[in-house]
């Protein structure tokens, strides 16, 4: 008995010290590396936070992170695919990428990701495992991506002009008909637009359970039939009669500020607060969600299989997962993106910071609906484009 | 009868330095008056004013009368003055005949009739089958003659010649000069000739040096 305990302790110790030794080696390797971090650049708050993280990474770990702004993670998938297909298996142009959902699935299934590595990060111990950090749109991550933050689909409106915003899909339809030309959403495959469509699907579909499994043509047809019927009714009342759509969520915020639209969409419940602070929205802007809940997810960072600076990428990812970085990220005056860490494991000061609120941010607790399976995304986007992609 | 009354051309702008002032001149029909002077003395500027194309860097006061019609207030196209430069300026995109037909007055109407007229004129110059030729294929002397006839076909009431012979060689020069003066005499048009070559002056023609009107004081 003593033997086995001792052995167990020894093994654990060796594993732990081994892991520590491994990590020390990784950190050493990372020093001086240049890490190309491809991340969506459509929000100034996000970009400012990443700029801060870049500075910290340089100061603490000596890694030179470059934020490559992209409009859609699908571009990353394309780039890695092309590079690997062209035989570029070691000197890839992307070292770390902000990704989730169907893009992650495409990368993983294509064998285009390095890993597993996420669970060997020192800060993995802080992660709240009750959050869906190990499956991404029902696809298991298997340690190929490291969680970064949480997001929830949130709507923004100007409370001065719209005191009673719609709180469900049906109310939205009525609202759009009452305010013709004042509602829009970004065109899929923009991920805000896709998520909006997914949100409607979740509310309108008869059997929600089927969405959590891989898509089949039969299931798709029956599940999405009410969605297309709804959209057919909705589109004529939309901005530009649904013939053109807003270019991006950021553009929708601007249109909301000018009064061209009455509603805007974001993934960040604190986006409105950020925008009010930077005077891009009037101070009467507020965030709200649907009473039945809105889609929420966890977003991750992943390392392509042909990344040049794998060590640097891991060190940076670990930093992003640290208590300090996560707290600052969740600070509503900085970015306001939800943390993936277990709040109980954080110091008290951080916990207080996480409870800060700002005018315009989402004040109510909106239930989180789970994302459908990743395979539904592409099917939805393709079908949407077929129905509404051109006149 | 071409008359200039009290012409003063000076530089526009504050300095207002005059090129010449107090120039008065009368040219009888069929007479060729030659204006000479050193380079840069304003001979071409004088002609430009007369045709109506004075450079905006100059300003002018004075009157121009042609056959009892005051011309200096009219645009170029209303003055009925013919012009000949050193370059023949035949329009390269038109044939020789079309160049000449361009100048023919509109009262000769009908393409056939106009063409006939042009061909007649060409024959009389010794260029009988040149109607459809490209002007670029003509020799220097031929082009000069076509250019003159084109100007004359427009039935101008006065003729201004700005060093028209200077680009021709000695032999051609004599021939063309004689041709020009013959045409002028035949049509009885008052003509002003600007040149710096004294050999260009016609027999017994008046010669005026522009420096007569250029005083050292204002």
């Amino acid at each position, binding site marked *: 008995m003593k033997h086995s305990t001792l052995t167990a302790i020894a093994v654990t110790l060796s594993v732990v010290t081994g892991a520590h030794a491994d990590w020390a080696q990784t950190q050493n390797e990372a020093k001086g590396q240049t890490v*190309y971090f*491809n991340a969506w650049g459509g929000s100034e708050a996000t970009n400012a936070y990443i700029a801060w993280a870049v500075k910290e990474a340089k100061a603490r770990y000596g890694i030179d992170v*470059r934020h*490559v702004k992209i409009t859609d993670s*699908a*571009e990353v998938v*394309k*780039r890695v*695919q*092309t590079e690997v297909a062209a035989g*570029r298996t070691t*000197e890839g*142009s992307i070292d770390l990428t902000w990704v989730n959902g169907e893009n992650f699935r495409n990368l993983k299934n294509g064998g285009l990701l390095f890993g597993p590595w996420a669970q060997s990060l020192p800060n993995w111990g802080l992660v709240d495992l009750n959050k869906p950090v190990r499956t991404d749109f029902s696809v298991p991550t298997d340690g190929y991506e490291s969680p970064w933050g949480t997001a929830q689909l949130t709507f923004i409106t100007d409370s001065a002009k719209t005191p009673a915003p719609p709180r469900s899909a049906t109310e939205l339809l009525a609202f759009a008909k009452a305010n013709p*030309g004042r509602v829009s959403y970004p*065109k899929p495959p923009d991920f805000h637009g896709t998520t909006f469509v997914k949100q409607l699907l979740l509310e309108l579909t008869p059997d929600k359970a089927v969405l959590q499994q891989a898509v089949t043509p039969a299931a798709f047809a029956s599940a999405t039939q009410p969605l297309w019927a709804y959209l057919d009714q909705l589109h004529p009342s939309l901005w530009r009669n649904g*013939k*053109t*759509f807003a270019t*991006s969520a*950021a*553009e929708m915020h*601007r249109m909301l*500020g*000018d*009064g*061209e639209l009455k509603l805007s969409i974001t993934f960040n419940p604190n986006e409105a607060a950020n925008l009010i602070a930077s*005077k*891009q929205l009037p101070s009467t802007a507020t965030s709200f969600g649907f009473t039945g809940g809105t889609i929420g997810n966890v977003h991750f960072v992943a390392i392509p299989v042909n990344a040049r600076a794998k060590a640097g990428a891991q060190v940076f990812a670990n930093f992003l997962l640290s208590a300090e970085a996560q707290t600052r990220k969740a600070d509503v005056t900085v970015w306001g993106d939800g943390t993936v860490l277990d709040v109980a494991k954080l110091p008290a000061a951080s916990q207080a910071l996480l409870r800060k609120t700002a005018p315009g941010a989402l004040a109510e607790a909106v239930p989180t609906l789970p994302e459908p399976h990743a395979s539904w995304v592409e099917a939805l986007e393709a079908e949407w484009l*077929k129905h509404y992609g*051109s*006149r | 009868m071409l008359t200039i009354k009290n012409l003063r051309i000076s530089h526009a702008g504050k300095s207002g330095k005059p090129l010449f002032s107090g120039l008065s001149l009368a040219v009888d029909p069929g007479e060729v008056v030659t204006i000479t002077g050193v380079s840069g003395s304003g001979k071409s500027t004088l002609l430009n004013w007369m*045709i109506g*194309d004075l450079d*905006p860097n100059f300003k002018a006061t004075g009157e121009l009368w042609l056959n009892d019609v005051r011309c200096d207030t009219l*645009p*170029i*196209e209303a*003055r*009925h*003055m*013919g*012009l000949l*430069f050193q370059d023949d*300026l035949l*329009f390269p995109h*038109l044939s020789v005949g*079309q160049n000449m*037909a*361009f*100048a*023919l*007055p*509109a009262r000769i*109407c009908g*393409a056939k009739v*106009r063409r006939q007229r042009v061909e007649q004129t060409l024959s009389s110059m010794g260029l009988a089958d040149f109607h459809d030729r490209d002007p670029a294929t003509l020799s220097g002397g031929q082009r000069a003659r076509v250019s003159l006839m*084109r*100007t004359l076909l*427009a039935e*101008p009431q006065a003729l201004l010649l700005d060093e028209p012979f200077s680009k021709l060689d000695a032999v051609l020069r004599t021939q063309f000069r004689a041709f020009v003066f013959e045409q002028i005499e035949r049509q009885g048009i008052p003509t002003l000739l600007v040149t710096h070559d004294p050999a260009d002056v016609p027999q017994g023609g008046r010669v005026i040096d522009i420096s007569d009107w250029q005083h050292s004081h204002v």
Partner: protein
Amino acid sequence: MAQTLRLTLERPLPRPAQSWTWTPRLWLAVLPVLLIFGPLLPGLYWALAPAFDAEVWQALWLDAQWPQALRATMISSVLSTVLACAIAALLATLHYPGRLWTRLQRRLPLLLSVPHAAFAVGMFFLIAPSGWMARATAQFLQWTSPPDWVTVQDPYGLSLTLALAIKESWFLLWVLAAVLGEQAVSRQMVMGRSLGYSRTQTWALILWPQLLPRLVWPVMAVFAYGLSVVDMAVILGPSTPPTLAVLIWHWLTDPDPMFQARGSAASLVLLAVLLVCAAGARGLGWLWIRRRPYPSGQRTPASNWRWFKLHSLLFATGYAVVAVLLLWSVAQGWFFPALLPDAVSLASWQQADWTPFWTTLWLALAACLLCLPAVLLWLEWGPKRLNALLYLPLIVPALPLVAGQYAVLLQTQLDGTAVALVWSHLLWVLPYMVLTLIGPYRAFDARLMTSARALGNSPWRACLSVKWPMLLRPILATLAVGFAVSVAQYLPTLFAGGGRFVTVTTEAVALSAGGNRRVLAVQALLQIALPLAAFGLAAAAGHWLGRHRTGLR
């Protein structure tokens, strides 16, 4: 600089009999050009080869987006070219020769230095439903929210057409100004009028028939640009579906090789459209010449059109664009329908990201400085007959060329490097620099060179100490042009840079999809500032360096 272009558009001199001996000097001249153009050939093959597959064409045919994309492209490019020509022609006919024309000419370089993307951004700020014009109208009509006008990103590409037409009309005016500066032309005008025809008639009967053939290549360049423009189309053009050029760009950068092949096939369609339209225009021109009636001698009196202040409108647009950009760059909270910002501050400038600016600066400097020796060597010792080949990148739509470059870079694993980025820009900087310099170069008095050689100098020394220093002003102008061209490049930066390098142009286009107009305005203004500074520097340097030598100025 107008003089340089005028000399370029002159009729070609009769070619001397040339014997081709591959002297080392010829190699020296040809090598840089080969380096720039050469890799394009295999690149084009790799890029366009996937398109030679029936399935790809079938997929393209079945794709629901191409008919409207093609329609938008055709409307925007054909209509904008025609409009630009009409505007330039109208202005020339109305105001040449005259004081206004000289004034117009002097102000053109200022307007020309506004790059396309910045101009599109400014137009967007002006004519969008929440733009300045709508706000001005809202003040009168008491609107509280923006009207439901489709003034930008309309499905037929009309706003894109308008912006293209205005921008290209300045370019065509500049070309026209160069040609009209010739004494022969002004004398023809006087001659025509002395024969009794009014200005407009002289223009129609004498000047236009001669000038139009000389404007064929600039007009074709304008048309090719309109066909392949992506940055302006992203900002002002339709989005569902976008113009064909934008569609091709999306397809070429798509992960799926099927879509990439479709993009290649569509690039070939663009090329075909160019050829068909060019042939059609040629045919129309030929017909028009054939059916020219015999000169009837009809003289119609001049009609007074001078009240039509088209030039004011044109220039006002240019100034308005810059003004609205300036306003947005200093605005703090500016919502519809306010005519002026609620508050002004320099915050946007202080917080601005200057990285794109510096990147653009070193990139453009590298491009124009590298090109200059190549241009000089080519013009001096290069085969003169092959000049037309150098101009190809100007009259061929940019997309297939960029795709070819990208294919080469991928194969050599050089994409995303600074070297590759500079190299990709050279393909467009070189032709423009040659175009700008060839006129003065050809007009250089050959006897000066002979004298220099007779004094015992080698050709090399003669060039270095006599010819090139004497061509100082044209060379400086050429450098400025090359600089401006590099600043304005969009697609090469995106493809060859692999998304690693952000220039003010790519940043401006990327930001145009976002909602923050202030940041966008700052980047657009930076984009304008760079070529403006280059032209100003070139002019100042020319004056200063020639301060003791009147003959150089």
